[in-house]
């Protein structure tokens, strides 16, 4: 029994220590954005890697999500004779929940894992040490641009997700199942209020920051060679997906 309590205590301490370490890591990364050299070129490169290269997977995920929402929604709403509400159902689901959450999970799977692997390999091959010995702060050169890129790219990807998802829903609901185009869009215009959009933007900002923070932190403190990089990459995908869902609950309860 005492052994179990000891293990639990050690695990809890480790958890608190890691959370504290991550917070200090984030503060340092953000603070370095305001210290010269400002590195706009590096930030653009990271937006390309984290954002632009995730666009295709976001387009595909969004299109199918919108199509499934429309298909499910249509048959449910038809039972109550409310097919006209399909547009608002699809739009609200996407803007409030599905857009930010699925974008977050897809970015963590594609870009989060890539960021951890990249920084982890830089750690084990002494590239981060090389930067340090050249008097170039690795936090500023490697981590800060990725954090800023995450904050910029994920909300933009979420916006793309929402628009493409709504168009996917239109394709199934209007073109395939015969809902009127006017009611699809007018229902949407009437039911979506600025709070829904603001909530979606805030969520996507928080998710973007969380995913890139976890990815950079896990990569930066990688140990034990190639196996360590593999473990860190795995942890990034699992932890950032769980945190996205946990944050989603917290933020949803805040915006309700």
């Amino acid at each position, binding site marked *: 029994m005492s052994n179990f309590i000891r293990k639990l205590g050690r695990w809890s301490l480790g958890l608190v220590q890691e959370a504290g370490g991550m917070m200090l890591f984030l503060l340092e990364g953000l603070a370095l954005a305001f210290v010269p050299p400002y590195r706009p070129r590096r930030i653009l490169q990271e937006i390309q890697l984290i954002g632009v290269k995730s666009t295709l997977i976001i387009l595909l995920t969004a299109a199918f999500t919108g199509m499934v929402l429309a298909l499910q929604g249509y048959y449910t709403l038809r039972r109550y004779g409310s097919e006209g509400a399909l547009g608002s159902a699809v739009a609200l689901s996407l803007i409030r929940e599905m857009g930010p959450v699925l974008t977050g999970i897809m970015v963590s799977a594609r870009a989060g894992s890539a960021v951890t692997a990249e920084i982890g390999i830089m750690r084990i*091959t*002494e*590239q981060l*040490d*090389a930067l340090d*010995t*050249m*008097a170039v702060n690795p936090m500023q050169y490697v981590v800060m641009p990725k954090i800023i890129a995450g904050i910029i790219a994920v909300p933009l990807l979420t916006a793309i997700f929402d628009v493409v998802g709504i168009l996917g829903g239109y394709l199934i609901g209007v073109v395939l199942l015969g809902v009127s185009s006017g009611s699809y869009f007018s229902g949407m215009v009437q039911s979506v209020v600025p709070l829904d959009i603001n909530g979606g933007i805030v969520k996507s900002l928080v998710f973007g920051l969380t995913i890139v923070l976890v990815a950079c932190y896990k990569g930066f403190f990688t140990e034990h060679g190639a196996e360590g990089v593999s473990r860190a990459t795995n942890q990034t995908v699992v932890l950032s997906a769980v945190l996205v869902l946990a944050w989603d609950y917290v933020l949803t309860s805040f915006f309700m």
Partner: protein
Amino acid sequence: MIEIIDLHKSFNRQVVLDGINLTIPTGEITVVIGKSGVGKSVLLKHIIGLVRPDSGRILVDGLDIAALRGRKLREFKQHFAVLFQGGALFDSLNVFENIAFPLREKTRLPEGEIAGRVRLRLEQMHLAPEVEAKFPDELSGGMKKRVALARAMIQEPKMIFFDEPVTGLDPPMTNTVFHLIRQTHRESGYTALVVAHDIPEVFSIADHVAMLHQGRIIAHGAPEEIQRHPDPVVQSFIKGEVDFLEG
């Protein structure tokens, strides 16, 4: 001159450096030898500011670098360069960009001047001009080391630290890299600290040799003195005798 005074370091209660005292004279090549895992790289990482000592001092021209922080530490780092064991070339940059990196980061030289200096270093390292467009994963081990040496040399530092510069290379390439170190040292006159265990090749480049064993410097002197050193541990290492006892 670099003076290491009573340097101690432990990791998880395991003593790695147990009172190191060593002087590295200005403008000369000092080689630290010793078995794998004895703490040679840890000693080097203390001198370049990547690891902080538990106690002791590291004086570089009288300045205690173990006590430096922030801007002063960054200023100190601009006076030296490091050639890491695996080269530590940046994967995302090609050879040209790797060599130009310190100049682009730390100087305001025009691109034309940077290109001229990079090509000069490539030539000095006997690397063909077409190599400059290649990425590190397209290079052989020996080429990586030469590119890393070119990058280390590009800012003409006062000190260069070499961490196992020939590990993993075949004998001709080992001799090539040592030849390049000797040649660049002759031309630039930098202070060099080489951490290596390649016997007898290291004796050909060293002005001074120090042997690290069980956390301490057990022998220090000119290469000839070390080769004739009476300590059986030194002789056993130099002769490469089988040693199953050292875990």
